[in-house]
């Protein structure tokens, strides 16, 4: 009797779990089919975007741009990604995409080295690899779509802060995570650019880990630690929005300048209430759009990623591949109270 109960219990557990598995499979068999290799070979326009993590408005926007492009040329768009921005979880997804045999992977790398082997395995299996937003080592991908040159980004932010604080005083940087490839490169270049502004001192660099609450708290701590602070640069969209939210409700509003990289929808409120005068960014939707067209050109064999190759990118016009297999989207764009109303992303 007892072991019958026990067996019944085990069977119940089994059945329940199997049901879950079946449910999972049922959900996906549809989408799995659409991500398929119907075309085969070089016509396989199944392009999957693998952002640093899901649920990040910046990547939601770039994926929307990518989807627009892929719909235009009749490919298959998909987006997968880990919940948290860690390199090892991206490796699992890259392996999965290799197994699925997609045409191209467009990835924003969480670590320039850690996902390299997985990407190279994908390329060995015939998958084209385009990095966007955050690059890997150049030997691990076919193309990197650069949103802006690091020099351009560093310069525009220093120019903006210099303009806003009268080219003199203490400033601080609120960055993303301490390991972030992009932000660290920009910060180094900003330090160089500051040599042209002898009256501006960079007193601190803090890391908000691209987490809203952490960035908010770090802003508060910065203002406590450095009472003479005149400006904050936050080269990350999460950081600048959190810092603006803190400033707008604090006594520092209008006294401490804030600039950096932000998206118009996140920053609109703070530009309109005067907390922020101007900030910069590229258009992530355009970035996704260009990435999708670059992936298409690679899949179809129009380009191989060599320097000097050129391809057509729908509404954005023609682009040429630069040194190290890099394609540059364009100059950073400055948003202020006069033009922010024209943008919705």
């Amino acid at each position: 009797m007892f072991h019958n109960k026990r067996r019944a219990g085990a069977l119940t557990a089994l059945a329940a779990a199997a049901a879950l598995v079946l449910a999972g499979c049922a959900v996906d068999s549809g989408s799995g089919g659409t991500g398929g290799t119907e075309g085969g070979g070089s016509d396989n326009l199944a392009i999957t975007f693998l952002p640093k993590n899901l649920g990040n408005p910046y990547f939601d926007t770039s994926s929307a741009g990518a989807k627009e492009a892929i719909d235009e040329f009749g490919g298959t768009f998909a987006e997968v990604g880990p919940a948290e921005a860690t390199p090892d979880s991206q490796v699992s997804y890259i392996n999965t995409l290799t197994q699925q045999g997609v045409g191209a992977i467009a990835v924003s790398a969480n670590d320039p080295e850690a996902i390299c082997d997985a990407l190279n395995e994908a390329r060995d299996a015939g998958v084209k690899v385009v990095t966007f937003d955050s690059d890997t080592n150049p030997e691990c991908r076919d193309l990197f779509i650069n949103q802006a040159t690091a020099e351009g980004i560093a310069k525009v932010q220093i120019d903006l802060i210099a303009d806003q604080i009268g080219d003199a005083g203490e400033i601080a940087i609120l960055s993303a995570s301490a390991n972030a490839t992009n932000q660290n490169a920009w910060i180094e270049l900003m330090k160089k650019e500051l040599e042209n502004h002898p009256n501006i001192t960079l007193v601190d660099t803090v890391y908000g880990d691209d987490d809203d609450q952490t960035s908010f708290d770090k802003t508060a701590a910065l203002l406590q630690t450095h009472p003479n602070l005149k400006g904050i640069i936050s080269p990350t969209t999460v950081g600048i929005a959190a810092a603006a939210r803190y400033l707008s409700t604090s006594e520092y509003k209008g006294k401490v300048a804030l600039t950096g990289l932000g998206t118009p929808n996140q920053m609109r409120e703070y530009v309109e209430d005067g907390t922020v005068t101007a900030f910069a960014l590229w258009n992530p939707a355009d970035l996704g759009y260009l990435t999708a067209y670059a992936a298409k050109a690679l899949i179809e064999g129009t380009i191989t990623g060599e320097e000097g190759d050129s391809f057509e990118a729908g509404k954005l016009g023609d682009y040429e591949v630069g040194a190290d297999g890099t394609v540059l989207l364009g100059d950073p764009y400055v948003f202020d109270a006069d033009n922010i109303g024209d943008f919705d992303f």
Partner: protein
Amino acid sequence: MTATTTTDAAVRTYRDYDRPLWQRVLLTREMAIIALLLIVALIAIPTVRGFSQPITLTFLLLDVMPILLIALPMTLIIITGEIDLSVASIAGLASVLTGVMTQAGVPFELAAVLAIVAGAIGGAINGFLITVVGLPSLAVTIGTLALYRGLAVGLLGTTAITDFPEFWTDLAKARVGGSNIPVVLFLFLVLLLVFVVLLHFTPFGRGIYAIGLASEAARFSGVRVERTKFILFMLSGTISALAGIYYTLRYGSARGDNATGLELQVIAAVLLGGVSIFGGRGAIHGVIAGVLLIGVLASALRLANVTSDVINIITGVLLVLSVVTSSFLAWLRKRRRAPGGTPRVEASTAG
């Protein structure tokens, strides 16, 4: 066989012996998990596109390897009724130590050995605080979880070290000949053999169960409770450091945040594999099946374009269900046993 067990059952109330051998082997939690693993794999092969490729096995084994490795000592520790939450931090610390020493010019092999020694020391610190000072393992290892992770991040700061000998990074991903079996699997199989013999076929291993069932009774029966636990925590630190070095080589990158959160995946797999969190019960084959079940599920669901949140939800529900079922069964057993003095025989005849 049947005759002897029946007479035995009348005298002894030890529950395992009132059933024939095949039932004792097959009707266990471990077998339920193995069956579930097979069912999931069999469902996934025809329904999930790409799952049936041989390469799936390679990626799957490489992905779960750190969990498999650490699950071995974790199983033994949980059977004694203790827990070690610091394993992922020790893995991270070993990863960073290997990286820092390699960068400073120490040959990689020596650096790796030193990092494993550091892992053993880390485990010994846990063991010392738990057995000599007498603190609860949950509290001690939560503390060292933060401590070792802090050391790892502090040592390397914001950078990642990526310069390792290609021979070793290739070996971490190499496959045997032209097959899809990763070479690193053999390292695991050797350790598996050691742990199976240790747990199931030595007095030391039987002592581990005795401690988990009743620590005081074990002590009076001559089991050296403190020494056993100390050795287990040291083993756990050593294997975790080994897993950390594997992690470093597989991803070619020594970072302070390597293997963050791995301890929860290990413990989840161990519990799913039929080890009781209260100690005293569990077997290694169940744990291996538990690890593989979580890995196969995640792999199949990812291939089927299910998002990571849904994968986490399914794994979580599975774990809760498995713990609930085992508690429910234990409750049933207790209720059945409580009223009479020898309900076992009656129950058997009634069934």
